[in-house]
């Protein structure tokens, strides 16, 4: 009988060790630094921001930080040191979520909520991507399958998704062996999301990669691409149908529950934090190829946010999509969304000067200028663009209507 008892004891003991051992190993190594900073190997950070941001908030977002940047891959090129210097904030952490999904707004919100819960954040730079119109009223809390929601809630009971996870076990083994795939520039034979870097400040600053390949980078290719020509054809066709008055009028009736139920509530619940919401300078042709219905929703969304801004003292709302020197010039873009990192620097400077602010009072004027530009837009092609000499190019390439850069701004820009 004792033999059988020993048998049962050994069986279940070994099985329990076999099952919990890998999870304990993950807890110890913790490649995404969810529970603690890396102490076995030098800290490495994953470009997979959906996971890594949770680790950054838990293990690195301490009282030395007072600001965060929330947004998509468009916000990845913000230089956090430069942002802090220009804005006067103490220290800024970038918590972007790239590889956007249709649930990107909800994911931004969860990352932001988690960061705010630390109690250190006084300033938020929050990109309001046009895709925010995609959030349906019955999907306010939905996130994509890629997003590890369990790392962003308060419950520890669902952390088993992280601890009991084959991928994380494998990463932990690689981590402890010092074999995590480091960031590669060209010719990687592994997936982008598997790359790791030893400096989270530079994490996902994709512009660094583009600069390394200056002669044939994304900007160079895009300005010559068939895709852009297709945009041009579409835009020519769409311009005739674009009805500025209809868009302006109908946008007044747009309502996003996500903005009222989630964004505004979060702002109201954090009165000591200042939220700098901004519309990124996505190229004009991105908007120009949209149908009227889409533009009505987009302008309706922006209008709604402008109202939120006027209701809450802790909100400033900036629209950088009327900077036509930039948005009408394909030379600044490597595709239909992503702009040069100099543009990131530039809009931060404008924000610090409190330019481009939009409120309910000036919204119609802003929208009229924006839509009128789309109505007269011509996609321009440039044979060669020297992105390192961006600044002098700006003045030469003013296309369409737009606000003029003041002397003070120019001076600031040239610094």
């Amino acid at each position, binding site marked *: 009988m004792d033999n059988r008892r020993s048998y049962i004891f050994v069986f279940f*003991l*070994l*099985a329990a060790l*076999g*099952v919990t051992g890998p999870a304990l190993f993950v807890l110890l190594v913790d490649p995404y630094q969810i529970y603690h900073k890396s102490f076995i190997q030098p800290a490495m950070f994953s470009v997979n921001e959906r996971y890594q941001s949770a680790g950054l908030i838990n293990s690195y977002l301490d009282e030395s930080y007072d600001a965060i940047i929330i947004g998509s891959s468009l916000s990845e090129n913000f230089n956090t040191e430069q942002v802090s210097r220009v804005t006067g904030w103490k220290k800024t952490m970038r918590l972007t979520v790239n590889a956007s999904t249709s649930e990107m707004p909800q994911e931004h919100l969860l990352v932001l909520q988690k960061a705010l819960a630390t109690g250190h954040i006084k300033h938020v730079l929050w990109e309001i991507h046009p895709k925010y119109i995609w959030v349906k009223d019955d999907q306010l809390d939905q996130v994509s399958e890629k997003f590890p929601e369990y790392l962003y809630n308060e419950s520890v009971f669902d952390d088993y998704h992280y601890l009991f996870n084959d991928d994380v076990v494998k990463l932990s083994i690689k981590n402890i062996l010092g074999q995590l795939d480091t960031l590669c520039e060209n010719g990687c034979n592994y997936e982008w999301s598997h790359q790791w870097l030893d400096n989270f400040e530079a994490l996902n600053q994709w512009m660094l990669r583009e600069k390394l390949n200056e002669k044939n980078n994304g900007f160079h290719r895009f300005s010559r691409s068939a895709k852009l020509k297709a945009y041009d054809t579409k835009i020519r066709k769409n311009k005739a149908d674009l009805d500025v008055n209809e868009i302006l009028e109908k946008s007044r009736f747009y309502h996003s529950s996500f903005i009222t139920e989630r964004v505004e509530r979060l702002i109201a619940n954090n009165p000591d934090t200042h939220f700098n919401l901004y519309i990124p300078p996505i190229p004009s042709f991105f908007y120009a190829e949209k149908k009227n219905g889409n533009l009505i929703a987009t302008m309706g969304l922006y209008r709604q946010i402008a109202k939120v801004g006027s209701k809450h003292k802790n909100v400033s709302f900036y629209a950088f999509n009327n900077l036509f020197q930039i948005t009408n010039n394909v030379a600044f873009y490597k595709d239909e969304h992503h702009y040069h990192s100099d543009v990131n620097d530039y809009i931060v400077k404008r924000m610090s000067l409190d330019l481009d602010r939009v409120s309910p009072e000036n919204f119609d004027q802003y929208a009229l200028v924006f839509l009128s530009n789309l109505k007269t837009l011509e996609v321009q092609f440039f044979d060669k663009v020297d992105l390192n000499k961006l600044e002098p190019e700006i003045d030469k390439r003013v296309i369409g209507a737009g606000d003029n850069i003041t002397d003070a701004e120019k001076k600031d820009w040239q610094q």
Partner: protein
Amino acid sequence: MLFNSLFFIFVFLPLSLVGFFLIGSRGHHRVATAWLVACSLFFYGWWNPAYLGLILVSMLFNYAMGVQLSMRAFSLLKKKLLLAFAVSSNLALLGYYKYANFFVDNLNLFLDTGFTLEKIILPLAISFFTFQQIAYVVDAYKGETREYNFLHYCLFVTFFPQLIAGPIVHHREMMPQFAKDETYRFNARSFVFGITIFSIGLFKKVVLADDIAGYVNPVFSLAEQLTPISTVDAWVATLGYSLQLYFDFSGYADMAIGIGLMFGVLLPNNFNSPFLSININDFWRRWHITLGRFFREYLYIPLGGSRKGFLVTQLNIFIVMLLSGLWHGAGWTFVFWGVLHGLAMVINGVWRQFRVSACRHDLTQSTFVGRLLSILITFVFVVLAFVYFRAETITGANHILARLFSETIWSEIQAVYSSGYNNALSRIAFLMAIVFLIPNVARIYVAKCRLSDPSMIHAIFSSLLFACSLYVLLYKANVIHEFLYFNF
């Protein structure tokens, strides 16, 4: 509920075991039986509670028939009529749920009619519990078994280790075990064997079968669309599916036996290294043993068996195999698979007859090489026939089989050789080594489980297999794969 689900392993099985022994060890055998029936019905209803009514009505009907057939002093004619009514009612139920759509579709196809019938969802395990109950009423008619307690009858049909995909048990081999006092007391030796065999079965299913399925399924999907596939992929699909089915089904059979032993109940063996069969008859004595037994006892022998001459015997065998194919699924691929096996058995019968009568061979004697050749021929036939078993259409199966010996075979083999490694082929080689070199669970454990305790090395070995399986279930918890035989 699946044996390979975490809920089953961590919640359902422990609770049902603890409840059964807590109640049973205090002498409340009827309550313990009721507990086990309740657990089994919960287990069945987990899939779709709506079909609980169906299995309950089926049990009530067959129990009533069984009682009538075994109690009343009816005339032989009346008993025969009652039996015919009972059996045909069961077949009608099975026919409606399993074959009605198939029948109507083919009627419309061949007679150009326009009958419409909504898609009927096949209730889980209906083929198994219907056959088990047909066997019961026939045995009751013969006076070989009787049951006057409905609760016991329910346990016989629903006992969850064997409910979903067999083994198809006889009332007379199950219920005497539940009549013993010792069954209701925790038996450490039986439990030890139970967890060991269960762990091996779980490993076979979760780690081996589901893994190779990842290489097999895409090729069959492409074949159905008649997309060109390489010869290597065709071989991967052909061999891989046979191995997947082997480990899936033998894994299930092991788990069923293991769970049975945890309850102190020995279920009949359903699987005995079928790929080591020396001929197709031998294969059917080793693959799904209890189904073969059912067909032999309740179809082949009533048809006349081997008592009516060589030709009728071969015809009977062919009919049994044809119906066996149809039992596995309502589709022409299954029918064709049954026909292939029927023909193979007839050919084997003729060959054996020829060897005995014309060559005066002693069939009990064979050389090592002869046996090896027999095993190889049987294996190749079974594997090729399984392509029809797996494919959704005969065209899809033909598409794969046609690629097995294509003109590119040598260049593809050279490419595989020069690349040095092929994930799918190396897995297939590993699985084949297990199939052909390692003795099966029945030989290692089941035969010994009433005689001696397994050594500590088995505890270490089986707990590692258990941990590996749980690792896959817990750490790679994306999809839990159903057992293939659940579809039949």
